[in-house]
């Protein structure tokens, strides 16, 4: 766990970057620090591994005050991923990843073997190891950045807008990968971004900062979206925050029935019973089938686009299991909101809090 206790940071030029911050970042969870530029989120992150020293207050990682430790050794025990990867241009990908194990004196052979292992973990081909960073795409470089941060298997991972410089498609891929990795690795992750959608997607808890280094609210995404602390938070979450909440709920509990027959529109399936399109006399409308794990938001979107208001539900193999109506989706969306308003949040929070306890 990472604890901030009454931490202040004032820079020599007089600006206060972080104002009286007390915050706990639970072990094994992703805490996202979010806010517009100049709100102190990056300063907060960088104080954890002493890239910036606090003016006053105490920061503890795993119960130990960071300022009481040797700065270089502390940094080796904390993974760090920077914007635009910050890879060493003169070292091969493999040697980049091996940086911290080498600093820890693990020996070149062992460090490289570990690096090769990590290439696979972050989804890169083995032959990427011999290349130099400039020979990789932005997304691949970012993966190397993550692998480098994981090399010495640190319990804590700091990520400073790691996916800020890649295009939206690659960004989504990298976010998925991070969630997949986190399921396996259970690191304590602190993630800085200015993108609220990214925060909602990745965070177990989201801390919203306001200019001047004030923490406004720290809560699970669902709670934040359902009960923003004030107008600033509500504005920051945006006008569609009701819909964003639906992105956190899955389709699993929405009831489904058999596909209608004999109506104006028919759901056409192939031989393997995989949905193809909605068909009527002389017209076909493509269908995007949804799985149980897809979000209520995706379901709502699909039902609005569907000519019948029905969405096609499939199993993991893509075989049709049934259809759900717009009304059923709406009912569940309403329930999700009611739940979020009354409870502390979704199951995701409860799990995190259980892990932290």
């Amino acid at each position, binding site marked *: 766990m990472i604890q901030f206790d009454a931490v202040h940071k004032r820079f020599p030029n007089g600006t206060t970057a972080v104002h009286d911050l007390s915050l706990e970042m639970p072990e094994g969870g992703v805490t996202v620090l979010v806010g517009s530029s100049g709100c102190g989120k990056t300063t907060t992150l960088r104080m954890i*591994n002493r*890239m910036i020293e606090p003016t006053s207050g105490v920061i503890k990682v795993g119960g130990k005050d960071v300022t009481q430790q040797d700065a*270089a*050794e*502390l*940094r*080796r*025990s904390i993974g*760090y991923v*920077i914007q*635009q990867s*910050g*890879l*060493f*241009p*003169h*070292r091969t990908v493999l040697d980049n990843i091996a*940086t*911290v194990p080498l*600093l820890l004196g693990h020996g070149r052979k062992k460090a490289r073997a570990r690096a090769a292992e990590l290439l696979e973990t972050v989804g890169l081909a083995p032959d990427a190891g011999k290349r*130099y960073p*400039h*020979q*990789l795409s932005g997304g691949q470089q970012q993966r190397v950045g993550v692998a*480098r941060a994981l090399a010495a298997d640190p319990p804590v991972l700091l990520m400073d807008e790691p996916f800020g410089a890649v295009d939206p498609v690659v960004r989504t891929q990298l976010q998925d990968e991070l969630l997949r990795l986190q399921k396996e690795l259970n690191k304590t992750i602190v993630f800085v971004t200015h993108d609220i959608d990214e925060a909602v997607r990745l965070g177990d808890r989201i801390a919203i900062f306001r200019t001047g280094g004030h923490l406004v609210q720290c809560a699970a995404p669902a709670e934040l979206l359902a009960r923003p602390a004030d107008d600033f938070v509500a504005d920051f979450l945006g006008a569609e925050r009701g819909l964003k909440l639906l992105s956190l709920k899955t389709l699993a509990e929405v009831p489904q029935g058999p596909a209608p027959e004999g109506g104006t529109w028919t759901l056409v399936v192939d031989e393997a019973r995989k949905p193809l399109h909605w068909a009527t006399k002389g017209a076909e409308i493509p269908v995007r089938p949804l799985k149980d794990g897809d979000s209520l938001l995706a379901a709502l979107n699909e039902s609005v686009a569907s000519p019948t208001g029905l969405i096609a539900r499939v199993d993991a193999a893509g075989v049709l299991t049934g259809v759900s109506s717009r009304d059923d989706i709406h009912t569940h969306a309403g329930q999700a909101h009611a739940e979020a308003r009354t409870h502390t949040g979704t199951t995701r929070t409860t799990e995190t809090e259980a892990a932290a306890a």
Partner: protein
Amino acid sequence: MTIDWSWIGDHTDDLTSLTFSHLQAALTAVFLGLLISLPLAVVAHRVRPLRGFLLGLSNVLFTIPSIAIFVLLLPISGLTRTTTVIGLTVYTLVVLLRNTVEGLDSVPAKTKEAAKAMGTRPLRTLLTVELPLALPVIMAGVRIATVMSISLVSVATYIGDGGLGQLFTDGFQRDFPTPVIVGVVLTLLLAVVADAALVALQYVLTPWKRRRA
């Protein structure tokens, strides 16, 4: 102007030893220049107030006429190779110091920050990150300093050294053009070969620069 080919044939041993002596003076000067410039450049790079002073000083040294430097050194080191090398070294400083400082400046802040954030201590960062990345700019300086030194060695003829420069005085005194032409050609060849060798060295030292994607 005709070349007396038989003179060249009769003096191959002399020419060889003069060429080596010439090269040795120049390379020693560049080597010593690097030894002095590296630490000074690191200081100039890290301590901003000293930067202008050090670069200014190397500029001032450069403006001293070459013959004057040798004359000034005579009371200290006499008519020796040492005097030649010291004089040449002083001239290499202006290029080597400036290029090394600029090389260190050219290392991206993001990369240095990454090294620090990974837990690399300052000295190791300098040796394994900053200097390697500064190498292309430093090597550009080394190439200029080397070619410049090779051309300057001849001036040391005034203090009885001067490598291939001795061929010029010899030729002028006897009004015999062959040694002068041979001296010029050999000096040029030396400069070209030394420069090519440095390009090859840089290629070997910077594998990451080879295959641009």
